[in-house]
């Protein structure tokens, strides 16, 4: 018997549904699991039938909000009803985990277990069966992992450490530039690190974007875009393409690194000039 899944959408942009559709091994996942309802691909149930369905796993995409219409029901009530029945809940995307981007407009929107960094009203009800997969959107392989696995070591935000103990900085192709403190001169270059000027949040963001590549080929930072910290409860911050500094020192240190250690290493690295890292990788002429 295949395990049965309901994929419920709250206040969302559908980004996680589309991200999940990028899963290379989707066909093999569908041999083990049956989606009774998914917002994109063909599934046997209609929204109106969900509250009477028998199923195993509830996947939630999008924030929760009272008074948000979901078919003929209220989203919050429908979620609560389904969540009580579910054997496992997978909250997918930063909206379902922390409240996410639309919370910036409506502060009453929350995630399943968390309201930004605070525990939500639902925490006590569902913490022992919920796995959180934040990201805006969540990576398809992370979602599949949460659906297919049953034991995880979870961090304080119920994120599997197997994915979120790493920082997004780990695996970036610009690591050499970070080490030697060579900053990107502008956007649109292969050379340089985006930490100091372009707002890259990867050194203090939990996630595996540079280890488990996006669309099997790339990542934000590899393609020159700073990491915006979308797996964290603080997403979206303001001034997203800009690194906040105090007296020339980045306001946020790399995860777990004491400021004094960072400054010492930076001072030493900057005292050397590494020609290979300050030149263009491919000469213009």
């Amino acid at each position, binding site marked *: 018997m295949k395990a049965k899944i309901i994929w419920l959408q709250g*206040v*969302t*942009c*559908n*980004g*996680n*549904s*589309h*991200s999940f*559709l*990028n899963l*290379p091994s*989707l*066909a093999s996942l569908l041999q083990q699991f049956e989606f009774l309802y998914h*917002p*994109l*691909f*063909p599934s046997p149930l*209609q*929204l*109106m039938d969900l509250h009477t369905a028998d199923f195993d796993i509830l996947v939630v995409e999008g924030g929760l909000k009272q008074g*948000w*219409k*979901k*078919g*003929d029901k209220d989203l919050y009530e429908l979620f609560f009803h389904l969540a009580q029945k579910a054997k496992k809940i997978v909250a997918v995307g930063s909206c379902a985990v922390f409240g996410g*981007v*639309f919370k*910036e*407009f*409506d502060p009453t929107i929350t995630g399943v277990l968390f309201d930004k960094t605070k525990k939500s009203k639902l925490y006590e009800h569902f913490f022992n069966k919920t796995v959180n997969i934040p990201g*805006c*959107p969540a990576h398809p392989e992370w979602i599949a992992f949460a659906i297919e696995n049953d034991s995880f070591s979870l961090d304080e935000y119920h994120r599997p450490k197997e994915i979120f103990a790493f920082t997004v900085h780990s695996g970036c192709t610009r690591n050499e530039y970070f080490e030697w403190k060579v900053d990107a001169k*502008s*956007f*649109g*270059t*292969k050379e340089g690190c985006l930490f100091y000027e372009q707002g890259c949040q990867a050194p203090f963001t939990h996630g595996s*974007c540079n280890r488990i590549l*996006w*669309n*099997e*080929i*790339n*990542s*934000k*930072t*590899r*393609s*020159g*875009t700073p990491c*915006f910290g979308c797996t964290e409860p603080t997403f*979206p911050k*303001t*001034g*997203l*393409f*800009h690194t906040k500094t105090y007296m020339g020192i980045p306001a946020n240190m790399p995860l777990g690194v004491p400021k004094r250690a960072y400054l010492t290493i930076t001072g030493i690295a900057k005292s050397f000039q590494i020609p290979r890292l300050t030149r263009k990788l*491919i000469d*213009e002429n």
Partner: protein
Amino acid sequence: MRIELLEKIEGEAFLKFQKDKKIITDVKVIFPHYRGIEEILRGRNPWDALVINPRICGICGHAHLQATAMVLESIFQITITQKAQKIREITRFCEIIQNHIKWFYLVIFHELGILYDFTKVHHLIITINKLLALFSGQWPHSSYCVIGGVTCDPTSFEIYQAKTLIRQIKDQFIQLIGELHDPLNLTNDLQKLYHTLQEKELLLVGKSHDRFITFSQDSHVSNIKLLHGQKRKTKLTLIEENEQKRSYAKNVTYNGKYYETGPLARLMQQTDPFIRYFHRRFKDSITTRIIARIYEVSLLIEKIIDHLATIDLSQPSVVESKMQDGTAIISIEAARGSLIHQATIHQGKIETYNIITPTQWNLSNGTSQNPSVIQKAIIGTSDEKIANLIFRSFDICSVCTTH
């Protein structure tokens, strides 16, 4: 009156049908949700819009990203390089292609009960998004277009990878849909579609005003409207947007009239014999509308091949920009038609931001004297399943409409 829920349209909408005996005499579309994007943007640094706006929509967020970059570039009076222009078109065309393929199979084939090879279709979608991400870092929700250009800086190795991927995409597409040279000789899945519409006597349903509009200018389209077969240039300043009671979507008209936007509108402004053939026979029925959307994929694949062959990598990816205050309005083609972004920057902050999405054009609520595109297409139908199919032939996007 009957209210029905229309789901799996990138969200949901309610349809209010009026009927006289069995015939539908009126329909109103109610979008029940609102997520406040335009409010979220107010007061923010303009650059932040490049991260917020893709989140309007999970399937066409890339078009929203590019629209954002364009409207800000227009205010800051920046012209991007030809290289950045080409890379942006490549990735945007990829987004349009994957959208059309998803819609053709997951929506239209599903609705008509036609069987298809999910694994092959899925593989095609993944390959397209991979090509997109090769430049944009990821899909969905990249922010690789910034004010002044693109953040990526490809070498000829990435161009080589992209060429390999687009060849695979072209082969896979032809294997599924068939060669699209001769409208009289359809093969593979397109032939299946045509035969099914024929058998179910649906070839001629869903005709609307036969009026088309596009506002954008790129290597694929121009800003042109077609009214009674006459082509005219369109101006963004002549668009009117009106609030509606009970629905969060606003109505939009051009010079007081409702127009269809989208792939059919884009292709009707060209003299492409393939689409002209279907239009001559079936006018703007669902047949022509569906075929236009899937046929557009083949044209966009050729555009991508062309761009990859002519891109000049020695140009900069980004040109420097300086913020200044001002207002601008721009249009860009998203999968579903012309997408319009308008912004005012005051003292370095976003003062107002306004978005008009393609679905608003096609799914406005008009009056009995002046019915909207969808109303005209549906009124007179007696079967709700057919009404449903007509709705879906426009490829509706609820999340975009209710940004």
